């Protein structure tokens, strides 16, 4: 993209949000987090520090977990953005990771949770059988003040086991 953007103008941004086309207008300086929340109305992504430490605003851009407070909305032009709103099924059915979070009491206020879920959704695809140490390393990019992390660690390990177990079962007939 070599297009020059005018600083005071609103630019049209088109992206794919949770599998559906979405459009909005933003000045070049608008953060992706603000664009998602206040322009597209996807308020499930939360803002906790806006300086890239707390991880609450984490979303997936083309599959990779990124902090949406450290990215401009215009940088998301043409990309696929996934947020917490897309984790459940169309009818609201919770996925394995979400169910594990509920079962292991991995959230209290729920404010940091969306970012943690999005990081895990990315990381677990690349690390299907994590050990606890590696998991805690990854989670150290997220601040949670309510849970002490125990429930989050248990939920993530349980979800990873369930997801990889399911995959193994699905793949077994082909082996």
């Amino acid at each position: 993209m070599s297009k020059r953007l005018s600083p005071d103008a609103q630019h049209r941004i088109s992206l794919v949000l949770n599998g559906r086309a979405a459009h909005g207008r933003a000045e070049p300086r608008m953060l992706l987090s603000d664009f998602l929340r206040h322009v597209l109305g996807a308020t499930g992504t939360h803002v906790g520090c806006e300086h890239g430490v707390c991880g609450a605003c984490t979303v997936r851009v083309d599959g990779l977990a990124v902090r949406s407070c450290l990215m401009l909305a215009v940088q998301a032009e043409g990309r696929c953005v996934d947020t917490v709103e897309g984790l459940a099924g169309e009818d609201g059915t919770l996925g394995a990771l979400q169910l594990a979070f509920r079962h292991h009491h991995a959230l209290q206020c729920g404010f940091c949770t969306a970012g943690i879920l999005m990081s895990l959704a990315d990381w677990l695809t690349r690390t299907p059988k994590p050990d606890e140490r590696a998991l805690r390393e990854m989670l150290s990019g997220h601040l949670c003040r309510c849970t002490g992390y125990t429930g989050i660690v248990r939920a993530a390990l349980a979800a990873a086991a369930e997801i990889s177990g399911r995959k193994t079962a699905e793949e077994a007939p082909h082996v």
Partner: protein
Amino acid sequence: MNTADRTAEAGRLIGRAIERLEDAALLSGRGRYADDLPVPPGTLHAAVLRSSHAHAELVAIDTAAALALPGVVAVLTREDVKRWTRPFTVGVKQPMEHWCLAVDRVRYVGEPIAVVLAEDRYRAEDVLERIDVQYRPLPAAIDTRTAAAGGAPLLHPAVGANVVSDRSFRYGDPDGAFAAAEHRVALAIDYPRNSCTPIECFVVVAEWNPAEGSYEVMANFQGPMTIHPVMALALNVPSNRLRLKTPPDSGGSFGVKQALAPYIVLMAAAARLAGRPVKWTEDRLEHLVAANSATNRVTRIEAAVRRDGIVTALDWDQIEDCGAYLRAPEPATLYRMHGNMTGAYDIRHVSIRNRVVLTNKAPTGLNRGFGGPQVYFALERLMQRIAAELGLDPLEVIRRNLVPSDAFPYRTAPGALLDSGDYQRALDQAAAAGGLAELKRRRDAARAAGKLYGIGYAAVVEPSISNMGYITTVLTAAERQKAGPKNGAQSTATVAIDPLGAVSVIVASLPQGQGHRTVLAQVVAEVFGLQPRDIRVTTEFDTVRDAWSIAAGNYSSRFAGAVAGTAHLAAVALRDKLARIAAARLNVAVEDVRFADGKVHAAGNPDNSLSFGRVAGASHWAPGTLGEGAEAALRETVFWTPSVLDAPNEADEINSSATYGFIFDFCGVEIDRDTGQARIDKYVTMHDAGRLLNPALVDGQVRGGFSNGVGAAFFEQLVYDVDGTFRSGTFADYLVPTACEVPEPVILHMETPSPVTPLGAKGVGEGNCMSTPVCLANAVADALGVADVNLPMTPAKLAELMAIDDPPPRPPSSTR
């Protein structure tokens, strides 16, 4: 038959670890937090200009350049707030003023000076730097001791000192006990400033309605609602002209969101200036510099001790640093623990001197543990020092001094009524189930291998459900008499039945993520023989429509004991009315009506039954058919206040809380000889929180409090330079623990139900913020064999205690 037993035979829900009803929404991005809610058309966005000086006179504020910029609608300054607001009410009588904006001086870095109102937030922030503020800098008072000793510049010259309250208390005969003491053991503590920093910051949306002369505010405020009158008085409107609403979900608080109060007043004034609704969302930098902080406290504590380790008297000297202004409810941090200043111990002679000092730091307020961390750090460090100085086992010193298990209810010397407990049994169970003997072997093995390893203990009484009168202990008995007595802790809950017989619960508990809706659904469903999912619980709060009193809110760990108990009372009252209605229809005596599995049936004859909905809807559809002696069962609102909460008496004795849980913690900590890095090897925490309503949520509270305690112990400090410059302004500077630093504690429980609360429950949310920092510090002290350990125990600080020198330069390596 006791009416409370009407559902005894049905499946119990209270006490079960059911999954939370809140979670499905929160896990799928459907939470409704303050910043998510729609705002009225035309809402302006606010940005706050803050002081860059710790202490300075405000000579001039020029907003002309700012107002000329596109998108800027108005700038609120001191002239506006002087016209429409008044200084906040303060808990001590001193000639000092705190306005919602700095008026004559700024007194801390980050103090609000002006508010820019613009069409969007980005523009509002742009404009801040175009406001020209002329300061005349003044020297700052930062060090707490210096300020208390009168050696610092005055913050509020009319007061004539920076000490704004100085009270001394005596219970029993401390002088006699100290004169007769075989040993005296003393310790000095500097407890640092820290904050639990919820991940969601403050949000306020305010409107002014000139036709009614009223303000309407939505804010993620957490109570206590004692602050509502303070805000209404500051806005100079009758309290029914300040409507305050809270959102359905909150992104955490830990007490911190009490400190929204000045911003609610500030944004209300801003909305009045603009004639349009105003929204302000605090950012993290603002939050760290100015939102709220626990008090830092300088404590000197001394014990009169027998040679067997029995403490006969305590002498406390506490200097509480509340920052630049004494903001309501301060100096409550200093007095919340007043009744239990003897901790878990049977100590009859106590003297206390409490001073409140103001310095050029951000004002303090509620923060999880609220006064407990400061008190127990001193008290439990002292118990460890007594053991060290007398050559006794530290656990034995704790044990010998505990309140005897047959002494409950036990009245402490300063006036707390410890309602129930068995502290000795808690120690025994914790030691056995937590593996203390094994931990000692680990320590011995580590030490034999040349490692620095220590074991720490802490015994803590965890108060909950604050007495609204405890803060008045800061006043003399004569001053209290003049002001009128304050006491009690009114809680309220409403249970309602709609025409199809569906049950709703409304409470003024302002939850901040703890799962109140789940627990209330459990409690009320059990009463009616329904399932938790059948109950709709509403916790968003509205001062105009809801039942509430000053004690309402989310603080002092009051939910389980007070709010859930009150909801139970309301549900039982409604159910007993339903029983009368059902008795006529089932043709049985009222005593024989049972509620189970969504049905109302005759005792011993489940086939003689009606659906719950049919009975419950009857008062709407056919109030004329309810039968003789039956009242309509539509809606019950119950107010409940603990009977044990009296105002402080002439002797300054105060039962500062309604109920008191118990915690006993022990841990093993190893310290790296080369780096000074401490590692928690094992942590065991035993809780007696009375009857547990949902054990999973209780464990969640324990883990969260433990995590906050680990942060306070090793990482967290809001740091000020000597000139008042703030040094902890980002999450890269104010370090909070991550998943790598918080181990999983071993959590143990026992239950001695409270005789004071309706369900026998006690608070549990704050205890580990009180017990964990000092338990870890005691382990560090044990490992290093040192007396003076202050928080946070960073590697640099521990290296200093270990007298680690920088490694000598390596000799030049010889070439081969």
